[in-house]
């Protein structure tokens, strides 16, 4: 926490300065890079790197739509990227300026082409699934040895949630992920725009709402690691970071991540360059730096997320590349779904339902 605050204060101080040609400004998710890479980039290119972080796509999108953010590289998630491309926020990548572009993993690029046809505007940074993080000991204590830790029933069945409530359950504060998860639990299309189906999904969430301690998209990492909560619906790598923090702290907390067997949402965080980037040339240098197999492997080894870089795989540590929670085997890869963006009217319905779920109004 303190470290985060320090970076925030530092970035705020820096943001007050003016952009210049020998600076590259990158806006990425929090806890999402090995910070040694930042120094390495500066040493290799001689450019000054200003690295800011955010923890919600909405925040990033609003900055992009307002324009003049001053950032050269930003990292939105696929469905947000798609809408932002539509709004004319990004510039096409100059692929000949990206010597390492050949390292891209086609398995991922094929999937991201759904958001960004032919990957014109973006390169995959990391990808993962949304699933269930559990404190294995506590969940067993509460629900017994056959607790459904790999099923959405763990968090969407009121009978389970009633028992779990006392030890704490966090949900992502991300309607675009939680509503599709509830739809999947009901066996409905997670990408549906049908209002009646969305209402049904909200009904599932409302039934278990009293047992959810908090809706938040980053606090669960620490909460899981400290043993404050026993279940979190969260992003794969974040849960695995919690697992490692708990192991480092040797506090007896054991964390596991499972993608739900009913189908897991697969998401892709994509690096892109805004049309009004002050230093597009520097931005391409940063992208090329991150496309380097060694650098990308270092990032994945640090944050426990899979990346879209085929060449990096030989440099990945065994506990990353061999972990099915990070690099799922093919069968699990096929048991995932991709969510597209909502049209404005549907988005309004989804946000409204989410507010109703959270606050009861």
């Amino acid at each position, binding site marked *: *926490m303190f470290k985060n*605050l320090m970076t925030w*204060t530092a970035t705020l101080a820096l943001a007050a300065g003016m952009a210049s040609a020998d600076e590259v400004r990158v806006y990425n998710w929090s806890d999402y890079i090995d910070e040694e890479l930042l120094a390495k980039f500066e040493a290799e290119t001689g450019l000054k790197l200003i690295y800011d972080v955010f923890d*919600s796509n*909405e*925040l990033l*999108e*609003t900055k*992009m*739509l*307002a*324009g003049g953010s001053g950032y050269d590289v930003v990292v939105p998630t696929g469905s947000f990227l798609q*809408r932002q491309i*539509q*709004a*004319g*926020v990004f510039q096409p990548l100059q692929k000949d300026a990206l010597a390492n572009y050949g390292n891209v993993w086609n398995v991922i690029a094929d999937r991201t082409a759904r958001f960004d046809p032919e990957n014109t505007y973006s390169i995959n940074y990391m990808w993962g699934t949304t699933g269930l993080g559990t404190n294995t000991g506590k969940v067993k204590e509460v629900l017994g040895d056959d607790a459904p830790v790999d099923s959405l029933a763990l968090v969407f069945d009121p009978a389970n949630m009633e028992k779990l409530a006392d030890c704490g359950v966090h949900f992502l*504060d991300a*309607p675009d992920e939680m509503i599709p998860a509830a739809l999947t639990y009901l066996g409905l299309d997670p990408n549906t725009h049908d209002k009646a189906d969305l209402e049904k999904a909200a009904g599932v969430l409302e039934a278990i709402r009293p047992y*959810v*301690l*908090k*809706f938040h998209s980053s606090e669960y990492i620490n909460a899981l690691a*400290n043993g*404050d909560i026993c279940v979190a619906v969260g992003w794969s790598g974040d849960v695995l970071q919690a697992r490692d923090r708990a192991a480092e702290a040797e506090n007896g907390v054991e964390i596991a991540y499972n993608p739900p067997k009913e189908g897991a949402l697969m998401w892709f965080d994509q690096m892109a360059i805004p049309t009004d980037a002050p230093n597009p040339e520097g931005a391409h240098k940063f992208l090329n730096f991150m496309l380097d197999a060694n650098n990308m492997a270092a990032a994945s080894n640090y944050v426990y997320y899979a990346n879209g870089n085929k060449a990096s795989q030989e440099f990945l540590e065994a506990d990353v590349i061999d972990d099915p929670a990070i690099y799922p085997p093919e069968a699990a890869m096929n048991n995932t779904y991709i969510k597209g963006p909502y049209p*404005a009217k549907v*988005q*309004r319905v989804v*946000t*409204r339902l*989410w*507010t109703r779920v*959270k*606050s*009861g*109004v």
Partner: protein
Amino acid sequence: MRRFTLISVPYIWLLALFLIPFVIVFKIALSDAAIARPPYLPLLEFSEGWAGIKAFFSELDFENFVWLTEDDLYWKAYLSSLKIALVSTLFTLLIGYPIAYGMARAPNEWRPTLLMLMILPFWTSFLIRVYAWMGILSTEGLLNQLLMGLGLITEPLMILNTNVAVYIGIVYTYLPFLVLPVYAALEKLDDSLLEAAEDLGCSRFSAFWLVTVPLSRSGILAGCFLVFIPVLGEFVIPSLLGGSGTLMIGKVLFEEFFSNRDWPVASAVAVILLLILIVPIVLFQMNQQKQQEAGK
């Protein structure tokens, strides 16, 4: 002429920092959301001359304000914000007044130090101070550890992520805004008035109630408004300390802006919030004026 120049300064200030931004927000409130940069239409195109300006105005409408009346979320959020603002102003007054009173009654040589102590927290970022409260109030936090250590409670209290935490955060943050004006009013108080009241048979308490409180009324009012007005639109404290059930208009505005990407509706919410605030702001202005006249 000189007088005119003097008066014009605050008016230019008001025009540049209040009216122009308000007109921009109001204009956005009348437009429609779109997938574009910026994410609303129509945009004012001066390049097309008169025709462009006319087309622009013909596309504006009050649709978004109508929308706000159709969903009960908005008025419930306004009401809940009003309630939170009123209750926290009251608590701030109950805690702040004795502090200000103590400061004003303290020996002269202590006062600058006490005043300094009141202002000192401002040297730290407001955000960091609110974060500190998260550390204090959480289930594993300092407060619970202390209470459990003393054996007063056996189960940790759930304070963080509830409205109680929001009230604590607001009262803590806004306390100096109330203490300082009340202190300023109390410091000017003439002690001989209290002596006179006691000579005339008042008990100490009724002297306080009949003399001190009425004479510090302007300070109380100024302090209450300085707390009430910003708390009504408060966003940071409820989102950091409050739970998902904490409904405040600042949060609704955030959702409209960030989750729905509907800048026009978000602007409409903001315009209404401003209209609601005009009442206390006008009252505050009148109070200030009265005070000035009394000062003459």
